[in-house]
């Protein structure tokens, strides 16, 4: 998508950037107690991690002022663009976020990305350096904007292979993938690689009766494509076994209960003999997989299976470059009943016909431009900001020893912990970051020593000067209202705008 990103620096930051940043390539941090005035905090990202951290700090440190930057014109991150449309109850956490946003000490600054330009960030951009100059503390809660790749032949050259992130983004109206238009009409078999809950979400979208989805906030484009879908058989393929699967029981049960959708029996040789002796959660998960679906496979309209111990090695295409099949190599578990068992590859191959394939092997966070200059250590291998476990960000350390905490710099959520965990675990983790910030502030630990701590007041002139539209909370409420009204007309909960242009138009 074309980007009209506007980058800018306020005059004082420009001076400061060229002098102190370039010269010292590090920030300076105050050591003085800031108890004499309220804490001023920037939060990057408006997903659950951002909101729950803001909430915790605002509850624990009186009069804290929070400015929350969100790259998109709309808030809530994966609660809006990840959580499946047929799981509206999960989105009830938005009520808490609305309460936080209604505080006079909270400012939502939407359509403003920190550091990132290009890609789907079509709005305004503020360089990280500028933000650091005007706050006591900053919390990175920007989630995971990329996904992991398999790195196997055919993955990028063939049509019909989608990442779960693209597909999920598309049916949930993420502007980045509004134009994805996945073709589900090429054949009746679909392969999903990976056995986490995202894989099960994707499978449910393919298997569920469209009439059930129609009333949710799924996009109209997705409903149309799903109505045309010819997919009848879904393989959810994992490289390990049932005892190692990443999905959770509630999501499996949902699939088992789908009307006229059958489940093919699982490979019993991978099941431990004495299931009753397993710890509760594993036991119940094994039991439900063995019990199978309500509908009988032979009489069902559609069916699915969990295919274990298969690692993808290649995608094969037809002459017209469309996907034809996926080749897997059988794997061998070193210890089949140990949930942390590793696998070894064998030479045995298996080919599954696939008119469409979804790669659902995890999301991935990346560093923001400006991290190096600010001395922020990002772990590329794990895809997280290096931190002390409580969300205190560690400094880049040339000598490989573990770095010390960068005063005033924190992280929370998927970018702190990696791209796993439900909203409850993201909340927990955001609370631990919030507690660390509160305890640091209350114990007069050093924070960022910037130009000022006037936050958004100091930055906004520069952004607005750049002529890009900043979305306030009131603007978002207009977008929200407009989406609900569109939904009412269509007989559904909400009809999302799927382009930033439409969102901005609804806000003005």
């Amino acid at each position, binding site marked *: 998508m074309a980007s009209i990103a506007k980058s800018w620096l306020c005059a004082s930051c420009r001076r400061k950037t060229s002098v102190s940043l370039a010269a010292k390539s590090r920030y300076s941090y105050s050591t003085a107690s800031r108890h004499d005035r309220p804490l001023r905090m920037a939060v990057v990202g408006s997903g659950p991690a951002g909101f729950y951290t803001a909430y915790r700090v605002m509850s*624990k440190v009186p009069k804290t002022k929070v400015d929350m930057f969100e790259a998109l014109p709309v808030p809530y991150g994966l609660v809006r663009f990840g959580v499946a449309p047929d799981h509206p*109850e999960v989105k009830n956490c938005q*009520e808490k976020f609305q309460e936080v946003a209604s*505080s006079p000490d909270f400012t939502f600054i939407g359509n403003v990305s920190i550091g990132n330009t290009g890609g789907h960030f079509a709005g305004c951009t503020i360089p990280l350096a500028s933000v650091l100059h005007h706050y006591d503390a900053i919390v990175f809660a920007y989630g995971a904007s990329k996904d992991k790749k398999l790195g196997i032949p055919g993955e990028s050259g063939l049509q019909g292979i989608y990442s779960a992130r693209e597909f999920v983004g598309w049916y949930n109206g993420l502007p980045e993938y509004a134009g994805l238009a996945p073709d589900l009409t090429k054949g009746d078999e679909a392969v999903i690689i990976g056995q986490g809950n995202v894989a099960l979400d994707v499978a449910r979208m393919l298997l569920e009766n469209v009439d059930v989805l129609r009333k949710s906030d799924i996009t109209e484009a997705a409903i149309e494509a799903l109505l045309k879908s010819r997919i009848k058989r879904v393989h959810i393929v994992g490289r390990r076994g049932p005892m190692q699967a990443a999905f959770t029981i509630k999501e499996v049960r949902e699939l088992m209960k789908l009307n006229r959708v059958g489940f093919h029996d699982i490979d019993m040789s991978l099941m431990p003999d004495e299931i009753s002796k397993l710890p509760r*959660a594993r036991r119940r998960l094994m039991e439900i997989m063995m019990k199978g679906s309500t509908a009988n496979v032979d009489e069902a309209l559609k069916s699915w299976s969990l295919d274990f111990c298969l690692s993808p090695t290649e995608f094969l295409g037809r002459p017209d470059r469309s996907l034809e099949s996926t080749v897997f190599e059988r794997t061998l578990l070193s210890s089949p009943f140990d949930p942390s068992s590793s696998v070894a590859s064998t030479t045995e191959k298996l080919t599954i016909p696939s008119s469409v394939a979804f790669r659902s092997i995890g999301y991935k966070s990346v560093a923001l431009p400006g991290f190096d200059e600010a001395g922020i*250590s990002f772990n590329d291998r794990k895809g997280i900001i290096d931190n*002390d*476990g409580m969300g205190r960000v560690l400094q880049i350390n040339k000598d490989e020893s573990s770095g010390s905490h960068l005063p005033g710099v924190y992280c929370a959520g998927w970018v702190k912990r990696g791209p796993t965990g439900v909203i409850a675990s993201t909340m*927990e983790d955001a609370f631990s970051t919030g507690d660390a910030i509160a305890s640091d502030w209350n114990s007069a630990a050093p924070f960022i020593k910037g130009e000022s701590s006037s936050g958004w007041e100091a930055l906004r002139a520069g952004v607005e000067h750049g002529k890009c539209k900043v979305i306030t909370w009131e603007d978002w409420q207009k977008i929200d209202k407009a989406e609900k009204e569109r939904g009412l007309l269509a007989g559904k909960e909400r009809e999302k705008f799927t382009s930033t242009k439409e969102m901005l138009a609804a806000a003005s």
Partner: protein
Amino acid sequence: MATPRSLVRSLQSLRTPSYQSITHIRQSAFSSRSKIRSNSSLLCRSRAGVPLLRPFSTSPRCQHGHIHPPKPGEELYVTFIDKEGKEHKIAVSKGDNLLDIAQAHDLEMEGACGGSCACSTCHVIVTEEDYYEKMPEPEDDENDMLDLAFGLTETSRLGCQVVMTKELDGMKVKLPSMTRNLQASDFGSKS
């Protein structure tokens, strides 16, 4: 379905930079959170009992959220043991659930999904097995979410699914520590 909560909306429309905080609501004798709250913020509940962060207010409209004040003589008692080990004995009415009760009394129970059995942030541990046995068995949905709860025990339940009855009068429940105690060693800083 994510129900629009009229109260939340009306609170939002009240957004104003000047505030008068009504601290008297917060001063419930058993408030465990009040000590960590700013004097400008106040807990209050939405229709489903979700606590509202209220930095300002003009009327105590959400004082009792979704619970029903017990009629004199018909009180049932439930005791919550908070994370610090402090006990809070509360008089409640029949029919109220533990999530709404905890939130109405400012105890730290999140209830992220608003009581729809989809998040496990309302996990409680019944301290005496006798009481646990007196409750109707958890449904599959509740058990499925409990499987994900941190610190699951034999007598764990989801607060939003436990409704007070006469049989449960005198019950004690513990609020488990939500934050797993992460050690710095869990995060190899440079590995």
